[in-house]
C-alpha cells in the first residue's frame, strides 16, 4: 500500500521536475540591452576595451617584443586592452554572441551574420577620423555596408596561401599537391578546419572540372556541392591534421608532422624556418577581407571607437598587416612598412588583384553568382557536409 503511494508520489515528483524544467527552458533569457544604432558623438574613454580578433591582429609584445601596437594605444587613450583570439569565423560568431566583447574584427563570411543577428552595431565613420584615408575600393562593400549603413571599418585583405616544406618537395604550382597528388604525402597534408574550406575545393574544381559550371565558389548548388564534398573526402585520406589554431599548424610544420597545406602568411612568419615556404598556386586563392566592428552589446563604446581610429592609423595598420601578411587598407600605410616590397608583394591598392581573390562569404540559398534557376546550398548545408567529410 505504502509502496504504491510512494510510487505515485515519486511519479508526481518527477513529472513536476520535468514540467518545471520545460517551463524554465521555455522562458530562457534573451539579450540584455543591445543597441544597433551608431552614436552621434563620443564621450569619455571608459578605461578598458575587450577585443575579439584573429591571431596577430592585436599584438602587445608578448609574442614578440618588437611587435606591439597595443601599448601605445593604452598609453594614449588609457583604455586597457584585453584580447581573445579565435581560429575560425564560426568560433568568432559563437563568442561574439556572448556579448563579452566590445570590438570584433570579422571576415566577410562573418560580418553579414553578425549584422543579421543584431550582434553588430552601426558604425558612425565620422567618429573615426582615419577612415577617410582608406582605399575607396574597400569602402561601402556588400559585406560591411547594408542598406547604406556602415557596420565597420576595413582592416586589410589577404589570401589563404599554400605552405610547403621545401626539404620534401619542390615549389608546387598547383593546389593538386593537396588534392589528387596528396597521396605522395600521405598523413602529412593539412587543411583549414572550417566549412568555409569547401570553397577552396570548389575553386579548384572551377579550374579542373569546368563542366560543373561553378562560377563562384560560394554559390554551389547541390550537385556542385556534392562534387566538392567528394573531392574533400578523397583528400581526407591524406590529411594528418586539420588546423584551426594557427599555432597548432605552426608546430606541426616545425616538427615535420605536416608538410603541405593551406596557411596564412603570419604562420610562416611564426615558424621562421628557411625550409618552410609559401606560394600562390595557379588555380587561385580564397582569402578574406576583414572589418573592424563594434558590438551592439559593447559596454565601452568610446574606447571601442578609439581603438578603431588607432587601428585605422596608417602607421599602425601597416604594422598589423605586415605582421599578419596581408595588404593594408590605405596607400599611406605603404610608406610605413618596414619592408620596401611590402605593398608590392601583397599588391596593396591593386584593385584588379583584390577583385581576383575569392573573399570569404557566407553561402546563402539565394545564389551569390546571380543564378535564379537553382537554389544554392547555404552555410548550414556546408556545416553538415564538413562534419561528414571529416568522418
Amino acid at each position, binding site marked *: 500500500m505504502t*509502496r504504491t503511494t*510512494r510510487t505515485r508520489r*515519486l511519479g508526481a515528483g518527477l513529472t513536476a521536475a520535468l514540467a518545471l524544467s520545460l517551463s*524554465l*527552458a521555455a*522562458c*530562457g*533569457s534573451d539579450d540584455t540591452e543591445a543597441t544597433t544604432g551608431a552614436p552621434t558623438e563620443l564621450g569619455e574613454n571608459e578605461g578598458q576595451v*575587450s577585443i575579439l580578433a584573429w591571431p596577430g591582429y592585436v599584438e602587445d609584445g*608578448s*609574442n614578440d617584443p618588437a611587435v606591439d601596437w597595443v601599448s601605445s594605444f593604452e598609453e594614449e587613450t588609457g583604455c586597457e586592452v*584585453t584580447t*581573445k583570439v579565435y581560429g575560425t569565423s564560426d568560433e568568432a560568431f559563437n563568442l561574439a554572441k*556572448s556579448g*563579452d*566583447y566590445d570590438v570584433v574584427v570579422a571576415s566577410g563570411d562573418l560580418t553579414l551574420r553578425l549584422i543579421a543577428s543584431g550582434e553588430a552595431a552601426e558604425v558612425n565613420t565620422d567618429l573615426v577620423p582615419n577612415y577617410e584615408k582608406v582605399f575607396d575600393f574597400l569602402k561601402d562593400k556588400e559585406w560591411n555596408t547594408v542598406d547604406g549603413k556602415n557596420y565597420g571599418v576595413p582592416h586589410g585583405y589577404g589570401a589563404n596561401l599554400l605552405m610547403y616544406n621545401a626539404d620534401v618537395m619542390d615549389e608546387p604550382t598547383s593546389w593538386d599537391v593537396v588534392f589528387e597528388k596528396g597521396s605522395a604525402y600521405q598523413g602529412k597534408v593539412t587543411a583549414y578546419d572550417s566549412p568555409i574550406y569547401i570553397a577552396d575545393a570548389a575553386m579548384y574544381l572551377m579550374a579542373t572540372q569546368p563542366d560543373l559550371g561553378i562560377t563562384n565558389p560560394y554559390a554551389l548548388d547541390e550537385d556542385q556541392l556534392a562534387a566538392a564534398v567528394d573531392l574533400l573526402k578523397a583528400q581526407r585520406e591524406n590529411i594528418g591534421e586539420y588546423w584551426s*589554431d594557427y*599555432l*597548432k599548424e*605552426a*608546430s606541426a610544420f*616545425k*616538427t615535420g608532422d605536416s608538410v603541405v597545406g593551406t596557411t596564412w602568411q603570419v604562420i610562416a612568419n*611564426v615558424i621562421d624556418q628557411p625550409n618552410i615556404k609559401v606560394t600562390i598556386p595557379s588555380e587561385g586563392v580564397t582569402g578574406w577581407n576583414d572589418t573592424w566592428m563594434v558590438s551592439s552589446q559593447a559596454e565601452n563604446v568610446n574606447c571601442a571607437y578609439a581603438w578603431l581610429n588607432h587601428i585605422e592609423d596608417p602607421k599602425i595598420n601597416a604594422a598589423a598587416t605586415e605582421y599578419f601578411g596581408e595588404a593594408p587598407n590605405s596607400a599611406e600605410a605603404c610608406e610605413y612598412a618596414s619592408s620596401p616590397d611590402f605593398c608590392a608583394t601583397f599588391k596593396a591598392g591593386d584593385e584588379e588583384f583584390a577583385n581576383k581573390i575569392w573573399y570569404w562569404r557566407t553561402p546563402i540559398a539565394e545564389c551569390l553568382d546571380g543564378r535564379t534557376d537553382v537554389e544554392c546550398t547555404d552555410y548550414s548545408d556546408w556545416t553538415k557536409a564538413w562534419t561528414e567529410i571529416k568522418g
Partner: protein
Amino acid sequence: MTLSPLARRALVVVTGLVLLVMYAPLLLVVVNSFNTDPSMTWPPTGLTTEWWGRAADSVGARDAVLTSVKVALGATAIALVLGTMLALALQRFSFYGKNTVNLLVILPIALPGIVTGIALNNAFRGILAVDLTIGTVIVAHATFCIVTVFNNAIARLRRMGGNLEEASADLGAGVWTTFRLVTFPQLRSALLAGGLLSFALSFDEIIVTTFTAGNGTETLPIWILNNLFRPNQAPVVSVVAVVLILVSVVPIWLAQRITGDTETAR
C-alpha cells in the same frame, strides 16, 4: 601470500615498467622546462633556466593558480558538507528511492564532462540568465565533487557501525553533540581523503570549466590551454606543471600517513 620467487620478480618488473611508462612523459616535461628550444623537441637542443625565471615572474600563471585554488577550496567545502550529509542519510537510513539518490550522486561524474558542461552553461546563461563568473565555476565543480566525498564517507560509516552513536544517545547526548563528539572524529580522516581527491579533481578540471567560466575567470587549466601552443609560453607551462607535481607530493604523502594502512588515500 607466498609467491614463487620467479612470480615475485616478474611482478616487480611489471610494476617497475608501468611506473617507468607513467613517469616518462612527466620526465619529458621536466626536461623541456629546461630546453632552449621553446617547442618540445627531442633531444633537447640545450639547457637553460630562462623559463623558470619567466615562470616566476609570470603574473598570468600566478593569478591562474590563485583562481584555481579558490575554486577548488570552494568546491571542496561545499562537497564536504553535502557529501557528508548524503552519506549519513544513505548509510543510516533505508528509504524508498535510496538507489535513485545513489545514482543521482554519481551522475555528475559518470556522465561525460562535456554533457555536464553544456547542460550547466545552458542553465546558467539561458535559464537563469546569470553571468558566468567564478561562482558558476565553483557551483559546477562542487556538483561533481560531491561523489568523491560521499564515497569515502559512506565507506567509513559502514565500517564504523552505529554502536558508539547509540551509546552516546543513551548517555543523553543530543543529536548534534553526538555528531560533533562521536561521529565526526571518526569520519575525519575519510573526509580528509575525500576532500583531497575532490581538490585534485577540481584543480585539474578543464572541460566543465571551459563551459562555466566566463571571459574573466581564468583557472590554471584554462591558462594552460591558452598558452600551450604559444611558442614563447609553452616552456613556462612546462615549468608550472613541474612545480605542481613537486608541490603535490607532500599532501599526498601526508594523506597517506593519516588515513593509515586500512584505507587508500581516496
